[in-house]
């Protein structure tokens, strides 16, 4: 027997678009049928191909990263891999027990106790009662629910429910594991546990499919990456190469997209507004791709209709989910708008940039320091892509590289 655990060949998935929450009603169907019988034109159902001709295979012990924009087909692919649905055409074979950390806690019943739910959820995930029994103490310890184990879980906090769900899922001992944004679960100490579990599973030669928007996580854990775009495989191969190509593509896409203009209040009577935000490199050439140690120059152009006593400018960096990774603001006393200005320009220099490999967006805003009210806020005013050989180095994890030194004292 070969060591191939997942094999997809020519997998496509079609969805029929339906309108309204009702899947379909007999009335509609009868309507379609009578129209057909009377020889009238029947409105064709709208179709949508979520996946087109996807083929790849994974060996045992391989870790595959799955990347792509929202709506590219990642979720559909996971649904097919987890056998929740079947492909419209093509074939899909798995060899081994499948586990998923996609929908943790699905199947929990709010009225049942933590204990009862562990057994219920365990058997839904394919464990036998004896297996659950054997791992019960480990699961409870992992979930940190302790003395609440016999309380109905509707009284649990959402964090506790999530931990319990993850704990059961992580103990199913699958041969193939599907993980979707594992690191979005729980607080820091729990995330550490999750990462340890992931490392443990990797050591045990499990086949893992990992979906994450965090490209650092992807390159850290996966040796192979599948980039899926508009339902088709755009690229499949060694992780660094695929992630680099993906970033290249994302950058091109970004420049095409317009930024949003928000906080528009009381019809144009804005004392100060941001006209534009531009990004350039150290030699002032427009640029939005940088390496980690590069200098980035950001120019915020504004206009003010009258003198303003207090004003604070700010720029914040966000990940693809919009999560604020860190921002900088001006000192309230440093920038004064003492007279109306037509084309004021404020320059922010980040030197060095220090963000790790990935794609980021930048917001620019100006606010009143006393009331914290935005005079103007430009969401996703800029897109920033960090790659290059320094960014790819494994010296640091997460989003930010900070200046540091290691020293051996003893």
């Amino acid at each position, binding site marked *: 027997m070969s060591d191939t655990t997942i094999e997809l060949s020519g997998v496509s998935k079609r*969805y029929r678009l*339906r309108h309204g929450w*009702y*899947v*379909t*009603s*007999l009335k509609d*169907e009868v309507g379609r049928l009578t129209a057909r019988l009377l020889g009238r034109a029947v409105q064709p159902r709208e179709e949508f191909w979520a996946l087109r001709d996807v083929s790849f295979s994974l060996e045992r012990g391989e870790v595959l990263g799955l990347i792509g924009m929202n709506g590219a087909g990642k979720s559909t692919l996971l*649904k097919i891999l*987890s*056998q*929740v*649905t*079947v492909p419209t055409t093509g074939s899909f074979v798995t060899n081994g027990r*499948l586990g*998923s950390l*996609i*929908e943790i806690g*699905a*199947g929990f*019943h709010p*009225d*049942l106790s933590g204990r*009862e739910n562990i*057994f*219920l959820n365990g*058997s*839904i*995930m*394919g*464990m*036998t*009662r004896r297996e659950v029994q054997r791992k019960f103490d480990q699961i409870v310890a992992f979930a940190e629910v302790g003395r609440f184990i016999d309380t*109905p879980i509707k009284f649990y906090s959402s964090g506790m429910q999530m931990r319990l769900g993850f704990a059961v899922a992580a103990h199913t001992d699958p041969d193939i594991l599907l993980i979707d944004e594992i690191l979005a679960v729980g607080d820091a100490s729990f995330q550490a546990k999750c990462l340890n579990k992931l490392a443990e599973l990797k050591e045990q030669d499990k086949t893992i499919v990992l979906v994450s928007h965090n490209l650092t996580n992807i390159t850290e854990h996966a040796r192979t990456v599948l980039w899926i775009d508009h339902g088709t495989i755009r690229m499949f191969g060694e992780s660094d190469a695929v992630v680099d190509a993906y970033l290249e593509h994302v950058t091109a896409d970004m420049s095409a997209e317009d930024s949003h203009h928000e906080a528009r209040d009381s019809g144009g009577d804005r004392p100060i507004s941001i006209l534009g935000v531009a990004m350039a490199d150290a030699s002032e050439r427009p640029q939005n791709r940088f390496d980690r140690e590069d200098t980035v120059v950001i120019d915020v152009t504004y206009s003010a209709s009258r003198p303003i006593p207090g004003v604070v400018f700010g720029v914040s960096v966000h990940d693809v989910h919009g999560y604020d990774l860190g921002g900088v603001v001006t000192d309230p006393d440093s920038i004064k708008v003492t007279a109306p200005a037509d084309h004021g320009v404020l320059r922010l220099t980040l030197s060095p940039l220090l963000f790790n490999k990935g794609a980021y967006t930048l917001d620019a805003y100006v606010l009143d320091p006393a009331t914290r009210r935005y005079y103007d806020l430009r969401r996703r005013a800029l897109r920033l892509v960090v790659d290059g050989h320094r960014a790819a180095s494994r010296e640091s994890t997460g989003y930010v590289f900070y200046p540091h030194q290691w020293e051996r004292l003893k």
Partner: protein
Amino acid sequence: MHNTTADLFRHWELISSFALRDIKARYKQSALGVAWALLQPLSMMVVFTLVFSLFAKVPSDGIPYPVFAYSALIFWTFFSNAITGGTVAMVSNASLIRKIYFPRETLLIAVLLAGLLDLGVASLLFVGMLFYYKVSLSLAALWVVPLLLVQITLTFGVISLTSASHVYYRDIGHALPLVVQLWMFATPVAYPVSVIPGWLHPFYMLNPMAAIIDGYRRALILGTAPELPALGMSVAITAIITTIALLVFKRAARTFADVI
């Protein structure tokens, strides 16, 4: 794809987990708890005795009417509750079906299993009534076992069809209570088969539940075998319905997650 014995065993555990969930969840936070399983057929029996026996003077083949009605009502309640619960089983577990793979029919078998427990509870009162009315069981009572098997198979077939349809057409959920009620009046629950005119009898027995319910009554109270030709017909219809239903269900279940 999944035909090893280990898989079957695991699925059996999954079925019992679902059944346990259904039972526990149903009776948690309810003061009377499992007594509800008894109250449903009991109250129907009281109403039937008043309306059909006392007011309408419906005959009961010489059996005291309460025990006559109750012997059918416990099995009919099992049937109608399983139909009602089974039909919505996919949709009420939609969040699960959308997210996790497991054999979908386990949900249906779990509904049947949970219903059997209620049947057992309701039967306790029946035993008491047998003593009270001094009805003694004969060996013919063993017919209950095959009758129950046919009934369970038929129920499974019906809910395979209705639950799969319910995923696509929610109309099924609205129509069902009505259909089940009409079905009860087409079945000898409140009245004996003997009141059916001779010419209608063959058509009447096309309802597979008719021979089954009549069979229970004969086996438990009259101490005779079921009406065999009618039961044979019932078994045949059950086999046809269930075979078709299983094929339909298996096919539809593969893409429940896309439409549910």
